[in-house]
């Protein structure tokens, strides 16, 4: 994999909200494999994710992109989205859903919370890495709040 052009922009702060250890490992491997410079933060559930975001809000210079699994213990992905959108400081943070679920109800609910994309986790790890790389490349081109 060739690194994507990043321009002058600093790398992203990826917040992976994921309770499955193997999926976290997969993300780390994908970043390494694609030689992506982004910082990876991990939260195993919605509440931890909120805590992480609140500790380092956007104003502090972080370029947050949340990668969200919907099926989480305690506070679920959709609940976390609702909490984010209700939080003045975090309402604008872009969130990309990456989940096993492709249930149409979940897709609709997620987009109602203005997610920036909704992806099913591919079974094939190579394809997963490619998806990851595409998403981050896209966001490197985009301005972030």
């Amino acid at each position, binding site marked *: 994999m060739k690194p994507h052009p990043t321009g002058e922009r600093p790398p992203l702060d990826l917040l992976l909200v994921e*309770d*499955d*250890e*193997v*999926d976290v*490992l*997969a993300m780390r*491997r994908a970043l390494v494999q694609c030689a992506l410079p982004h910082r990876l933060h991990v939260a*195993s*559930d919605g509440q931890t994710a909120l805590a992480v975001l609140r500790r380092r809000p956007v104003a502090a210079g972080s370029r947050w992109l949340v990668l969200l699994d919907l*099926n989480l*213990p*305690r*506070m*679920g992905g959709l*609940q976390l989205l609702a909490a984010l959108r209700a939080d003045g400081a975090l309402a604008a943070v872009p969130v990309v859903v990456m989940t*096993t*679920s492709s*249930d149409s109800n979940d897709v609709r609910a997620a987009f109602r919370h203005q997610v920036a994309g909704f992806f099913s*986790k591919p*079974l*094939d*790890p*190579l394809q*997963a890495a490619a998806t990851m790389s595409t998403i981050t490349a896209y966001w490197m081109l985009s301005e972030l709040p």
Partner: protein
Amino acid sequence: MVSARLLPTLPAPHAASATAGMTKRYLTALGLVALLSTAAFISLYQTIATQDTAAAIVNYSGKRRYTSQRAALYATQLVAAPDAAARAAARREMLASIDTMEAAHLGLLRGNERLHLPGNPSPALAAIYFAGPQPLDGLVRQYIARVRALAAAPDALLVADNPDLASILAVAPGALLVALDNVVAAYQQESEQEIARLQETETWVFIATLVVLGFEALVIFRPMVRRVQEERAKLAHAEAYNRSILANSYDGIVTIDRHGDIVSANPAVEKMFALPAAEIVGRPFRQFLAPGDGGEVQEPWADPAAGVRTLTTRRRDGTTLTLDVAFSSMTLDADHLVVAALRESTEQLLRCVRDLERRNQELDQFAFVASHDLKAPLRAIANLATWIEEDARRGGGNPDPAHLDLLRGRVRRLESLIDGIHQYATATRPQHHWHEVDTGALVREICDEHNPEGRFAITIAAGLPQLVTDRTRLWQVLANLIGNAIKHHHRSAGEIVVSARDAGERWEFAVADDGPGIAPEYHDKIFVIFQTLVPKDVKESLGLGLALVKKLVREEGGEIALDSAEGRGATFRFTWPKVPREAPT
């Protein structure tokens, strides 16, 4: 059939006028018959009276003839009498005869009630009496006068050539006898004619009677019979109509007498009670209700104002059916009856629909969650296998043991998920197995299994009930709740209290712990299958137990609720039926 008898016949708006018409017809018929009988009676009476009169007339006209000759005989004797005594006797006899003759003659002419003589002779006879050269009346009067003159004559004049005697002896056997004979014959002929005429009248009355009876048979009685036949056919039709309505009614219809016994039942009732009508009719209605039903109103059928009530029938095979029963009263032939219309309770149907909807929803959720949760470990396995392969290709020597551990862990998780799905799907088999269960002993048994080392202080409150229920199901519910209290406790020791209280129709069991507690926002989530509050990697938990518990409790018609807050322990309360939902088999 009793049931048909109880139903009103079809409305017949013309019935009243039809009845009036029929009444008029048979009154006419009876009137005519009465009239004819009277005519026959009068005609017969007249015949008899005429015969009486004719007999009297003939008798007295004969007597007149006979006494005339007798007077002549005594006239001869009077003249020829040897002495005064003989003369006196002859004179007496002669006068008696002539008196009789005169009375008969006057009676025949002018009428005499005592002698039953009408007098007033017919014109033909009047002609004999008063017309012609020698009218009979004159002849008779002269004769009587001669006889009386002879009787009054002194003895000296009583000689053979007495002119009166001569006249008497000349007239009596001659002109007078002939005339009197003629008149007797005339009277006889006349009375025979009269009787013949009356007999003819009688014949005519008889013929008229036959004609009228024939007329009545054709014009009055035949239509009446036809009408009655028509009415009967209409009634039979109405009865068949009513019976077929009853037979095809979706609603069960039962009539109950004032003793509470069933008088009739239609086929729908047979289906509802699962019994033939013969085994329903005549038995008390109460007998078909589940015990305790109609409790607050002792005899709901005795009070039609009770309106629609929901009652439960218990069939012989032990199954029950909830019915909406509408009571109304009816009076038939002074008998007071209650009509009960039975319909399968919509309440029960709605409950079934809600039940099905809920199950459908659960099934959807189950299928979705199951597929999602099965995919997650599969994906992990695919990832790990690829990494191990990549690392090996890069010449990394032995595979990373952490990866291998994870791989095995995911395979185990997949296996237990599949087991869990099977367990969840088969947790509520269609049949129940009923047992008398001592719930206190059941809880002790569960505690021994889940708390073998006695790290947890488990209190079993007094008053845990004895009940008939499906032991395995109750065991699963209590074991999961107690097991969870131990498994998810934040310390290695703690306190658990199991108790029960009477909640009316059900028992309410409670399992309380002093564990970490669960924040209210997760109270719904914990009952969803495969949902866990701790990442599966941290605590190997399927998230199956509470979903299973909820399914079992709901299946028994109960509810489960959680009372808990973070840091304050948790109390799970669930209700469980006191009596089996269906009868023990």
